C-alpha cells in the first residue's frame, strides 16, 4: 500500500503542478515508511520539501500555502505525533472556508500512518480517527487496500477541502495488489459494498476491513453477510448503510479505535434514527477498549480480531 500511495502522489503531482509534498524526512529519505520514495528525485526539492521537525509548522504553513493557491499534501510521520499540529487543523484548516464566507479555501491533505499491529513504540499505534471526524469542516478518509489507497488519495488531493487521510500501517505491506496507473479516483463520501448478503451487515474500514473479511471467510456459507467498507469516515455514507441495514435487519460494526464516542457509535445513532424498526437484533460493535493503546505485548488483547467479530455476528444472528 505504501507504494500505491507513492503512485497516487506521483500521478497528482504530474497532473497538477500546484500539488506539493511536505513533511519530516519525506524527501531524501522518502518517508519512514517509504511512502514518498523517489518523489524528490522526480519533482525536486521545491515540490517535495523536507521540513523542520514541527507539526504545528507543517500544518500551519500548509494552510498558508493552500490559501495562496497550492495543494499541499502534508505527511505527519505518525498520527500520535499530530497533536502539536492539531491546533492549526482545528482552528484554521477546518474553519477558514466558513469564516471567510467561502473566500479562502483549504485544499489540504494531511496523510498520517495510524493504528496498531506492527509492534511499534509508544504513540505509534493509536487509532484516533474519531477526533478528526468530530471536527466540522474536515473530511476523514481511511483506505483498506492498495487500490483503495490509490483511488482515494487521488480524490482527496483533488478535493477542494481539507482531508485527513489516515493510513492503516498494519496493511502498508501486508496486502499486495497491483495498482494500474490509469485507475480512476474513488469519490469521497461513498462507501463500498465489498460483499453482498441479506442476513447481516458488517461495517468496517482500514485494516479492520481486512480482518472482517477473514472473519466472514471463517463463517463460510453459514450466513449471507453483507460487508461494507466505509472508505470515508466523515462525511458518512448514511444512504448505503441504511439501505443495507434495512435489507439485513442486523448489523455489526468494527473498528480498532476506542469504543466510546467512536465511529461505530455514530453509525448506531444513524441506524436508530433511520432504520430502528427494521432491526431484528441490537446492533453490535467490536472495537478497541477505552484504554491507552497498550505497548505491543498487549496489542493482540486490544485490537479486535476475527474471533471477536465472529462472536458478535453469532450473537446478532441468534435474534
Amino acid at each position, binding site marked *: 500500500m505504501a507504494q500505491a500511495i507513492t503512485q497516487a502522489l506521483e500521478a497528482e503531482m504530474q497532473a497538477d503542478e500546484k500539488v506539493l509534498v511536505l513533511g519530516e524526512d519525506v524527501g531524501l529519505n522518502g518517508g519512514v515508511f517509504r511512502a514518498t520514495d523517489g518523489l524528490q528525485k522526480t519533482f525536486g526539492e521545491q515540490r517535495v520539501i*523536507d521540513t523542520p521537525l514541527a507539526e504545528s509548522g507543517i500544518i500551519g504553513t500548509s494552510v498558508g500555502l493552500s490559501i495562496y493557491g497550492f495543494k499541499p499534501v502534508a505527511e505527519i510521520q505518525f498520527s500520535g505525533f499530530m497533536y502539536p499540529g492539531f491546533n492549526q487543523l482545528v482552528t484554521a484548516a477546518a474553519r477558514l472556508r466558513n469564516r471567510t464566507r467561502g473566500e479562502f479555501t483549504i485544499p489540504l491533505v494531511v496523510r498520517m500512518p495510524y493504528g496498531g499491529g506492527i509492534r511499534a513504540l509508544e504513540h505509534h499505534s493509536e487509532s484516533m480517527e474519531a477526533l478528526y471526524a468530530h471536527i466540522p469542516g474536515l473530511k476523514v478518509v481511511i483506505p483498506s487496500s492498495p487500490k483503495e489507497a490509490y483511488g482515494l488519495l487521488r480524490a482527496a488531493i483533488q478535493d477542494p477541502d481539507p482531508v485527513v487521510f489516515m493510513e492503516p500501517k498494519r496493511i502498508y505491506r501486508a496486502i499486495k495488489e497491483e495498482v494500474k496507473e490509469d485507475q480512476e479516483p474513488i469519490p469521497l463520501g461513498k462507501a463500498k459494498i465489498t460483499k453482498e448478503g441479506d442476513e447481516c451487515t458488517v461495517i468496517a474500514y482500514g485494516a479492520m476491513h481486512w480482518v472482517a473479511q477473514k472473519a466472514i471467510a471463517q463463517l463460510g456459507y453459514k450466513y449471507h453477510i453483507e460487508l461494507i467498507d466505509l472508505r470515508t469516515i466523515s462525511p458518512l455514507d448514511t444512504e448505503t448503510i441504511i439501505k443495507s441495514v434495512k435489507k439485513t435487519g442486523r448489523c455489526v460494526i468494527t473498528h480498532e479505535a476506542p469504543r466510546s464516542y467512536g465511529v461505530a457509535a455514530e453509525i448506531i445513532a444513524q441506524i436508530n434514527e433511520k432504520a430502528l424498526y427494521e432491526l431484528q437484533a441490537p446492533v453490535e460493535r467490536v472495537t478497541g477498549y477505552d484504554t491507552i493503546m497498550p505497548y505491543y505485548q498487549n496489542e493482540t488483547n486490544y485490537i479486535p480480531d476475527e474471533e471477536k467479530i465472529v462472536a458478535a455476528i453469532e450473537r446478532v444472528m441468534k435474534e
Partner: protein
Amino acid sequence: MPRKTIANFELEYLQIMDETGSVDQELMPKIEKERLKELYKTMLLARTFDTKLLALQRQGRIGTFPQATGQEAAAIGPAACLEKDDWYIPSYREFAGLFLRKMPLSNVILSFSGDERGNKNNSEYKNYPLTFPIGSQLPQATGIAMGMQLEKKKNVVVVYCGDGATSEGDFHESLNFASVTKAPIIFIVQNNQYAISTPIKLQTSSQTFAQKGIAYDIPSIKVDGNDTLAMFAATQEAIQRAKLHQGPTLIEAFTYRICDHTSADDAKRYRSEEELESWKKKDPLTRLKIYLEKENIWTDKDEQQTEKENEETIAKAIEEADALPAVTPEDMFQYMYEDMPDNLKEQLEDCKKFKKNE
C-alpha cells in the same frame, strides 16, 4: 537620533579533552579519579548494552530500538553532576546517564519489548521515563523546576532534547517559561546533527543551537558533546547558577550518533561513509580511555574485566526481564484511573474472555 547598538551577544564553545585524550589543565573540573572511572565503566556498559539490544531486536525479541552509540558523554557528564533528588529527564538516547542513576537495565529491555512495566522508575533517583513525542518533555520538565522554585528547594532539573526538537513550539515555550520564572533547569540539546534524515541545515539557519537560548536571556554555551569532562564542567557551572536562583542554562552538546536513528532506520540513505568514519575518530569513549590510561588509573586488564562484568550485568538484566510473568489484560486497564469506572470493568471482562497471549 542615530541608530545605535543596544545589545551584543557572545557565545562560547567549550572543550576540555580533545580526541587524543589531552586535557586543558586550566579548565579541568574537580572530579575524583574513582568517579571518572565509574563514568567510563558506565559508558562502556551503555555501549555494550546498545549492541546487545540491537541484536535482540534483530532476533525479534524486542521491538524498535533507538541506539545511542556515540552520544554517551553528553548523557553521562550532566548525570554525574546530579544528586538523587535532582531530576534527570531524558529524551530517548540517555541510557548512560540513566544507568549511572541506577535505572535497572531490565527496565529499558522491558519497555522496548513492548511492556509498560519497564516505564516504572524502580530507582531511588528522580528519573523520568523516556519521551517519544519530540520535545514534549521540555515544558513538563520546566514545570517540575518551577515547583522546586516555588518550594525553595535546592534541587535542579536536567532535561534533554535533540536538535530536531528545537523546531517545536514546546522548546521555545519552555525556554521562555524557565527564563521568566528563573526556574532551576538545565536544557541540554543533544545536537547529533540529524533529526532522523533531516540535517541541521534544513532544521535551522542559526549557526548554533546554543544561541537560541540567548533570545530568551538564558546563559547558553556550545560544548563538545563527546567530551565527558566538558559536559560535566558546563553542567556544574549551570547548577551553581541555578542554586543561586539565577535561572536556567542551555547547553548544546555537539555530537554525532554513530548508529542508525533506530533499528528501523538506514542512515546510509542520508549520511556518507566518510562523515561517519570521521566521527568514529571522535568517539567519546576512546578519548576518555586514553586519558585514564595516561593518568595511570586504567589498563587493558581493567577494560577486559569491565567488559566481562558488563556482559554479565546485561545477561542478568535480560534474564530478569524474561522472568517476569507475561502481561495480562489487567495491565491495560488498572492504571487508567485511580478507581476503575464501570465501563472499563465491563470491557476488562470482555478482554479476559478473549485473552490471546499466555
